[in-house]
């Protein structure tokens, strides 16, 4: 009808709908181009790496090459211990991450119950956060042995303080009117804690997960570097000592893939959890 009013009786209605979609189409074009671009850059790096090592412009003795890495990976997977190493590193990281985050969140949230307790705790959290905790790795190895436990302990040690600080920031930012509201409804402190404090602080805790999953992985690997009988970190160390540069690169690639996988998992989890706790009114930064 609008086209008739404009005197363009010959223009079919479908075309005028396309005009409205212009913005969306432009966005879709950008999305498509970005996706293609990302893959292209990745493939280009791999191809270039392979090509430059083939023509000996860079030395595969130090930098390996994609084909050598794949060959070495297949070998390590079929005849070596790659599978068990990945399992070892992966489970130590995940367990350490989960325990560290739960413990940290519990510490951070507990500050709501007493201002004095929170004030006493705060400088210790800040100080401990500044300590290079990996320097404590030898102590943990002595405490927990060279097995699985010491790797988990290191991962926990790295995650716990950042999570506690994140949860504490969340608790500090609670809208006092929300607490007043609950009290005006005759709520006990435990109600306020479960119905306001925990959900309020959740976005802070969840937004610290991305950093923490990386820290947990780093903790586990350092533990494996220092003293271990299994794990990708141990594999890398062993390969380096035997000048098996290809296997070192296999380790690096495997760890990168693990990191990406866990990052995705955390992102997915974040989306699911935050859907339940942040509805427009709140954002992690607030």
């Amino acid at each position, binding site marked *: 009808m609008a086209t008739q009013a404009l005197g363009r009786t010959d223009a079919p209605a479908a075309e005028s709908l396309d005009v409205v979609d212009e913005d969306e189409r432009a966005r879709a074009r950008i999305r498509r181009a970005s996706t293609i671009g990302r893959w292209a850059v990745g493939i280009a790096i791999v191809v270039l790496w392979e090509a430059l090592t083939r023509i000996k412009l860079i030395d595969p003795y130090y930098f390996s090459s994609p084909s050598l890495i794949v060959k070495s990976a297949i070998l390590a997977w079929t005849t070596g211990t790659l599978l068990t190493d990945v399992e070892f590193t992966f489970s130590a990281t995940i367990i350490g991450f989960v325990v560290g985050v739960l413990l940290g969140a519990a510490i951070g949230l507990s500050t709501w119950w007493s201002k004095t307790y929170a004030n006493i705790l705060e400088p210790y959290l800040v100080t401990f956060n500044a300590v290079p905790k990996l320097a404590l790795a030898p102590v943990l190895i002595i405490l927990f042995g060279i097995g699985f436990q010491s790797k988990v302990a290191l991962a926990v040690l790295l995650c716990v303080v950042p999570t506690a600080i994140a949860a504490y920031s969340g608790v500090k930012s609670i809208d006092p009117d929300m607490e007043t509201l609950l*009290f005006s409804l*005759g*709520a006990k402190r435990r109600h306020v804690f479960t*119905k306001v404090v925990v959900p309020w602080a959740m976005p802070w805790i969840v937004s610290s997960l991305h950093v923490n999953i990386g820290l947990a992985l780093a903790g586990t690997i350092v533990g494996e570097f220092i003293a271990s009988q299994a794990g990708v970190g141990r594999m890398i160390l062993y390969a380096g000592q035997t000048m098996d540069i290809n296997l070192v690169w296999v380790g690096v690639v495997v760890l990168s893939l693990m990191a990406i996988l866990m990052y995705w998992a955390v992102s997915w989890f974040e989306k699911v959890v935050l859907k339940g*706790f942040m*509805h427009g009114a709140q954002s992690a930064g607030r």
Partner: protein
Amino acid sequence: MSDMLPREDLKLEVRSVSKVFRRNGKVIHALDATSMSVRRGRFVSIIGPSGCGKSTLFNVIAGLAKPTTGDVVADGASIIGKPGYVGYMLQKGLLLPWRTILDNIILGMEVRDVPKAQAIARAMPLIERYGLKGFEQHYPHELSGGMRQRASLLRTMLYDRDVILLDEPFGALDAQTRMLMQSWLLQVWGDLEKTVLFVTHDIDEAIFLSDEIQVFSSRPGRIKATIEVDLPRPRTADVVTSPGFMELKRTLLSLLAEEAERAYAEAALA
């Protein structure tokens, strides 16, 4: 006048409640000895300049703050320091953003450990009757300001106390929505037979809604005048142009103008 009321008619008594507090070394008289008797089922508005201690009084009645002197008596017993005796809707609607409208509305019952199914069964008829049907599974940010205030008001109502305190519930709404909400509130009040104490800045709103208006003086707050509103009920929007309404408005305007001048003069002196 209220001293001659039969006892069973009295719902809430504020007996010379005052509040003095110290902030940054300065003593602040928020509320001068204030007394007030509220009859069962009445709609009483409290109007006065900013900082006249209206919110302080509400916090005392709600049991959230202790007065420096005085007592608040409801149904014959003191309710000082007893939160949860009256329903209290704070100035901001304060819906929890991570809860659906339904879950927000039943919050008060949840805190009192009413089983969830039972709480929902009680909430649903009110949600349907008072214009939130179809929105119970929405989240607060998906609703308009007026809808959100309705939800917080229903939460307060479903908390199921005889006395309801409303602290400027419509202050943040635009004029159109505000008028709709006022009529809506009168409907709810008429249905549920609550005793309502209502704080507002708006003279029209106070007259339109109330049986009685308590005019507060500027700080330290105390009751300066009590105005009976004898306009017939049910009231519709056109009551605001009636001569009776105009007369009351004139009285209230002059009372409040005096206060504003006084506050201004004091501010100039200080």
